[in-house]
């Protein structure tokens, strides 16, 4: 059974129909890609899945349960982690605290525990910290734990976002343009990291990308979105050879 199902979802921004009759099913452990020209509605689809927007029509199901209408933090704690296209980090927090914060829903010590500094608080904080450091190591940014995020280079900031998303312990990870703004070196590294994360944590991944080589190499299946509608879906070869995709997307000057 698919872990995530999106059924006939349509979303309107006032008069603008950003997404129309969109469908998706992701099995556990799969890597799927979403491509499409600027303004096609890709990020909107992520926002619909994660509860930031509530779809005008249609349903989003997680493990069979309907989740549209739930608050984003509930959906996140049910197993959907995400990164953001335009890096939404907390500017006054260091790297380690970013990753610790994503354990929020599993904190049990409560206000009194926090205020009185109970042994339980110290134990839980230590556990969270250990987990956070393990994740930072996995993404090769363990040495940055104490750094302020605002001083980090772009590539490192993207990794912090990914570590933070992974700390929610998701079963499905949504990556919104994970390579945006990266140089070729960083590109190779991030691809390796995505593979490693996928292998070691056994996640499903759904990613939005503009760089064709990247998507083609990573994803098992790809959807192409144009003006809010899926015009083609299939394996990387099928997508590459689809005349509609070539005309609408590859031919439009986007790499």
């Amino acid at each position, binding site marked *: 059974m698919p872990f995530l199902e999106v059924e006939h979802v349509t979303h309107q921004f006032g008069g603008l129909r950003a997404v129309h009759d969109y469908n998706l099913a992701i099995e556990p452990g799969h890597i799927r890609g979403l491509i499409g020209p600027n303004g096609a509605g890709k990020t909107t689809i992520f926002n619909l899945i994660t509860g930031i927007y509530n779809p005008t029509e249609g349903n989003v199901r997680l493990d069979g349960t309907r989740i549209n209408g739930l608050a984003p933090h509930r959906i996140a704690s049910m197993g959907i982690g995400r990164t953001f296209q335009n890096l939404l980090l907390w500017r006054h927090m260091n790297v380690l605290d970013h990753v*610790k*914060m994503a*354990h929020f829903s599993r904190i049990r010590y409560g206000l009194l525990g926090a205020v009185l500094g109970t042994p339980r608080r110290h134990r839980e904080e230590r556990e969270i910290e250990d987990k956070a450091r393990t994740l930072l190591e996995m993404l090769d940014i363990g040495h940055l734990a104490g750094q302020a995020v605002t001083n980090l280079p772009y590539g490192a900031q993207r990794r912090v976002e990914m570590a933070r998303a992974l700390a929610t312990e998701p079963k499905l990870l949504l990556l919104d343009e994970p390579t945006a703004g990266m140089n070729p070196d960083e590109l190779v590294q991030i691809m390796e990291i995505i593979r490693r994360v996928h292998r070691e944590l056994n996640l499903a991944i759904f990613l939005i990308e503009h760089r064709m080589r990247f998507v083609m190499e990573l994803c098992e299946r790809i959807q192409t979105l144009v003006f809010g509608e899926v015009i083609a879906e299939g394996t990387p070869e099928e997508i590459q050879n689809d005349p509609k995709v070539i005309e609408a997307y590859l031919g439009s000057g986007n790499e």
Partner: protein
Amino acid sequence: MDVRRTMRGFSQVPLLGWLVAAFISVVIEIQWGTPLAQALGLPKIPVLFGVVLALKQPHLLPGAVVYLLLVYGLPIALIARLGAGIANQAAGALLRLPLWVSAAVHLGLFYAALELWSGLSDYRDLVLRFTLIAVMVTLSLNVINGYMGEFSCSHPGFMAVGAYAASVLSVDLFTKHRVFGEALLPPALGPFLFPLVLIIAGLVAAVSALVVAIPSFRTRGDYLAIISLAFMFIIKSLIENLEIVGGARGLGGQPDWAGLSTVFLWTVACVWAINNFVRSTLGKALNAVRDNETAATAMTVDTRYTKIVGFLFAAFWAGVAGGLFAHVLRYVNPGTFGIQKLAEVLAMVYFGGLNSVYGSIVGAVGISLLGEALRPLEIFKWIIIPLLLILVMIYRPTGLVAFKEFDPKAVLRPKNGPERERDALPRG
């Protein structure tokens, strides 16, 4: 070059050294303060570091400055510098014991110095107690306006609720009163139950804060500023019209339970509790919500719960501070908790620094002293303080000591050799 070396010497003085030095200079003042003041042509010792003289009797200022140098400046500098070695050893030995032992020793020493210092003048004692209360109010408002990044104006209202709740309890239960009748409990029990009275006052304030929190944090948008301002005015006029607590005339007769030691202990408790909270992941969620709410929700942070909890927690401490305030003054009236109080507290928060325990202490102490210095100006004080606030917001928008984490262990640590290098390493 020499100056640099001297300064480096001072940077190696641990907190313990400064406290011992301060204590000794207070003893010096007790011994020789009065004759020295007379010799310098001062009518009496400068009670508040001379700040009160600045506007009232400026011609006495030079004498006051010399006095301060001789009684405080020089002895503190000498003792701190010469005793740094021993102080570092002592501080190091203390840190090998559980942290609370070291904290208790430092606080005990600090309290002893304050107790002796304030014993020399009733005015000092009163200003000191009000300043400590101001630290509590400022830090608790910082939780909302700094750590959470909202803008709340309701703190005087929470203080009022706490002040009246505590006063009604203590007057009704432990004293004979015109309206409330005979004492319901033996007055001798009072001082022991006073902590409970204050906690109840804090809880009542926290419950009243729900009235602001629930509508303000329902949706996004800047409703909090306006709703909290309305709350402050409503509380004030509510009390003005509540005859049973004296209406606009106020309520007096609170027992004398809020001496320096009580106020000091509560201030320490408040700073400790709030600092614990804001350094936990639960408390840092306030920062996440402030810096980016979308990212916070996507990382499982329940933003509404976080804001409401932070808000009520802050209101609780404002309520406790209000209860103490009423028992220091032993009289309250609703006029105290109006727009002037608000301006003062906001000035303390923004002047001292957002998101910082140090900042709140600096702000509360600084503005309290300034307030005493400007007292002769009467109503014009209320032009100068807001003006200062505006200047700070223009030139240093986050305040003097903003975004600095208060780590008790680092504060109590010896300041020599390898320990200093450990300071520079990232936390972990």
